[in-house]
């Protein structure tokens, strides 16, 4: 069972990262694409809690950092998604009360994740992105993530619930 779980999670991360670079550029708005890996991490956080989500965030972030054509310093998305997974996991009891709360959680997660990534870029000068440009990208990224939430988040949440049936008794 544990092998199956690891396999499913690996496939989900690979699929998210691949679609992010190979499919969504055709639907990109000004180069910004929905951050599928982030949505997967948030879904995991809402179902499984902060520890699991932070761990998953690290792996998913590393995959985003390393999969071609990524060229940034490795570990930057990993750092961002660890924080996102942890924070979303902390508020999961409130986030699951209604659909609006879930969407607000995604928006906040997307804002935090993209901002941490942009800030780490500013600190590392990798590359030296002007602040104005980072500020123009973040709102688009957040709205695109929110736009995709109704299609991705329930699906992912159901998947993580299936992988961990024991948790269903909590609610």
């Amino acid at each position, binding site marked *: 069972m544990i092998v199956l779980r690891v396999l499913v999670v690996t496939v989900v991360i690979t699929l998210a990262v691949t679609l992010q670079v190979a499919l969504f550029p055709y639907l990109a708005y000004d*180069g910004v694409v929905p951050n599928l890996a982030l949505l997967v991490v948030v879904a995991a956080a809402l179902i499984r809690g902060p520890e699991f989500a932070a761990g998953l965030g690290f792996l998913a972030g590393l995959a985003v950092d390393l999969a071609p*054509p990524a*060229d940034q310093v490795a570990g930057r998305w990993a750092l961002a998604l660890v924080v996102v997974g942890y924070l979303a996991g902390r508020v999961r009891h409130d986030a699951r009360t209604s659909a609006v709360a879930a969407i607000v959680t995604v928006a906040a997660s997307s804002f935090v994740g993209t901002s941490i990534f942009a800030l780490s870029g500013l600190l590392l000068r990798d590359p030296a992105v002007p602040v104005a440009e980072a500020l123009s990208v973040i709102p688009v990224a957040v709205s695109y993530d929110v736009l995709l939430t109704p299609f991705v988040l329930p699906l992912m949440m159901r998947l993580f619930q299936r992988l961990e049936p024991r948790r269903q008794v909590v609610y």
Partner: protein
Amino acid sequence: MASRSRRSSQSGQDARPSKAVLVLLLLASFTVITLDVRGGDDSPVEPLRSAAGEVFGPVEVLTASVVRPFRAVPDFLTTTSSLRSDVERLEAENSALRGELTTTVVDRNRADELDGLLETSRSTGYALLPARVIGMGPAQSFSSTVTIDAGTSAGVRPDMTVVNNDGLVGRVLRADRRSATVLLIVDAESVVGGRLGASMEVGFLRGRGRVGDRGRLDLDLVDNAVTPAQDDIVVTWGSRNDVPYVSGVPIGRVQSVYSSPRELSKQAVIEPLVDFSSLDLVGIVVDGDRVSDEGRGLITAQGEGTGP
């Protein structure tokens, strides 16, 4: 903290999320970042990166080939097939004519200056290895890179020039077996030596890091007495041994010129000829004498397009 009462009814692990896990993972992230920043080109992360390339490259090739047919769907809805082929034919003709026009100025200048070091013939005689763009980095990552579906097995090596039928696209950053990563010239880290078509003045073009319609390059001229003319064409200056950029490839047009009191040299904003948001078929400039292991057809100056 409003959910404290609900949490208390659950298992102990839930009531108090472990800080240790978070700290451990944050430290792990910082370690990876530090290793990669300190290491530079031979960082310990580099083998990991190429391993990820070997795994994700073929997956991206597969995904792109599945997705590709659906890209044409909006076209089916808006135009008939005959109209579409007409448009394609005219666009190809148009960009061919535009390419001819843009290089004429430079070629004429070259002939005038009897520039023996730069052979004019070479500017049209490059052999191109065709490849398709299969993946594009998101703008959230602030780096403008794309994946192409040709790798070391097709003869692609790092630091090769990548062009398409409009002009210069970028250079190969790293090559895996089945795929390669290309740094676009609009990336903030990209610097290309450029030459103004009309005055033959040289300068450096730096990307601004935006891919969309606002993708622009900044040109710093070496000679500060020269003012670039509007709409003047900029071509590659050419690097030593043609690595990473071959010479004479059109890059863009001068959109506007400004000079700041702080800088000595004049700066020009260059609008690239290539539309980076809709990149598809590109060509990698390779040594025409070498045949790729994959048997991929080369496009040569004679127009012998022996595609796969």
